[in-house]
């Protein structure tokens, strides 16, 4: 977990972090839902007026989210708030009824899920979803499917094994034989093989033992340090907000609070609702 990866580390912009520290004040309730945006800083991912639903039931009621290059942003909320739905929207698995998804200045609305991966939006889905009947190594290589003609893939695989030594040890085993924590590492390694410009993590701590959760969040912190832009969705709000530059609180399809991770952690109403008082 200590070795660094060959992923190109974009230097963290000092200007950016300053811009977000003076964002929302503790306890502030967002009216428009938009996070604090610095002038002249274009978001890497810009979601505007996102509406979607399942059948007649609307799951997201027109929300706005912006994620800037190099940022780690957390989206917290209860089960069923629409967190995973939002990630599915970003990845192109869930069709929109209204709103726009803009990535790096390009409108993605008509882009299919696979095209979005080629553009650098890579998701670690809820519940890991590793390919259980394929070997660990096959899983990692499938992560690099979008760059299968790239000569650097073999080196990246080695780098991934240095980062996750346990995966190297088990690389011939079927992914279904790994423990939950190992599967989560595999799912993250698989996503990193695609060289994400934006890494989406859906409930990385779900169903894992506390010690393993610590380990997973340590890995996320490390990825953050390497400069990868991360959008993490969590029910485990305290862990997620602690590592995030900024956070959003989602409640039944609406964003009800936003601010710096620290600010949200200290927010009384957020504490009461999501951090166990």
């Amino acid at each position: 977990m200590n070795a660094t990866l060959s992923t190109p580390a974009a230097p963290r912009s000092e200007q950016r972090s300053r811009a977000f520290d003076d964002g929302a004040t503790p306890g502030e309730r967002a009216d428009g839902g938009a996070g604090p945006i610095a002038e002249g800083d274009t978001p890497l991912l810009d979601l505007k007026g996102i509406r979607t639903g399942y059948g007649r039931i609307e799951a997201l009621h027109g929300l706005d989210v912006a994620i800037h290059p190099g940022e780690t942003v957390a989206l917290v909320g209860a089960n069923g708030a629409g967190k995973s739905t939002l990630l599915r929207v970003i990845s192109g698995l869930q069709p929109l009824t209204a709103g726009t998804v803009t990535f790096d200045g390009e409108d993605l609305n008509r882009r299919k899920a696979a095209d979005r991966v080629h553009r650098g939006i890579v998701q670690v889905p809820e519940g890991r979803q590793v390919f259980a009947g394929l070997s660990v190594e096959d899983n990692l290589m499938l992560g690099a499917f979008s760059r299968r003609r790239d000569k650097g893939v073999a080196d990246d695989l080695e780098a991934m094994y240095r980062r996750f030594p346990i995966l190297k040890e088990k690389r011939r085993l079927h992914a279904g034989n790994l423990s939950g924590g190992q599967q989560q590492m595999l799912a993250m390694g698989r996503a990193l093989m695609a060289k994400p410009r934006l890494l989406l993590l859906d409930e990385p701590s779900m169903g894992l033992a506390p010690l393993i959760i610590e380990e997973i969040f340590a890995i996320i912190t490390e990825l953050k340090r390497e400069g990868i832009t991360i959008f993490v969705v969590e029910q485990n709000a305290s862990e997620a907000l602690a590592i995030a530059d900024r956070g959003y609180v989602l409640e039944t399809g609406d964003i009800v609070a936003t601010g710096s991770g620290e600010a949200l952690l200290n927010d009384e109403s957020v504490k009461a609702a999501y951090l166990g008082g």
Partner: protein
Amino acid sequence: MFSEFFQFTFSGITLGAIYALVALGFTLIYNASHVINFAQGEFLMIGGMGTVVLMDAGVPIYFAIPLAIAMAGVAGILLHRLAIAPAKNADVVTLIIITIGASIFLRGLAQVFWGKEYHALPNFSATESISLGGATLLTQSLWILGIAAVLVTALGLFFTRTALGKALLATSMNKDAASLMGIKTSAILMMAFGISAVIGAAAGVIVAPITLTSYDIGIMLGLKGFIAAAIGGLGSSTGAILGGLLLGLAEAYTAGYISSDYKDAVPFVIILAILFFLPNGLLGSRAVERV
């Protein structure tokens, strides 16, 4: 006595190799989409009849065969593009009914344009048979076994050695997760239809010198191939091959030792027994593995 047994065994294995190829076609599409493609038998028909028609038009057999197989491959891709893909969110049962419709349509086209007669393809080798240990072996049987072995090996290598093969496996295991890897799952499904059409057509061509070919051979061969796939446990390639061979042997022994009148009933008796006692087939997955 022994030579008789040897004879039946050999023709059983030959027949079984054909069923195995048909079953592999079913398995491939079933894995990629959970659809049982009842038009699979028509690919055999297109392979066999296509070759006959092209040869009648003066194309030499060595070109006619690959052309007919390619024609079937295109038919498979079109089947996906025009019939399966447009019904994207339909449930599996609807898609299966679509494939039944497509098979009737293809059979009808063949009947109208290629006629209702039975045709024979010439043997692939000049010598028709050789005798071995008191039994007579058709040289065409050797061709069938050889070509089936090559196709099975090629398919095995495709799944274990190529990125596209693994992408197909990944799509069959979890379509959404495969999309998140940047895999175009719709293109993968189209490829699965193309490949299984090619395998089916190849089976249809190599069997044609022995069984004759006509516009309607797809019905029985398709059904038997499906039964072979079900015996093996739908979704398992090894199971499909095993199921095909078992079915071929059972048919040959019944025809040889009991009566050839009952030969076509054998697969249906076997499928009833399998459905009663081993509903997941011989090698089918019992349950989803999840930690």
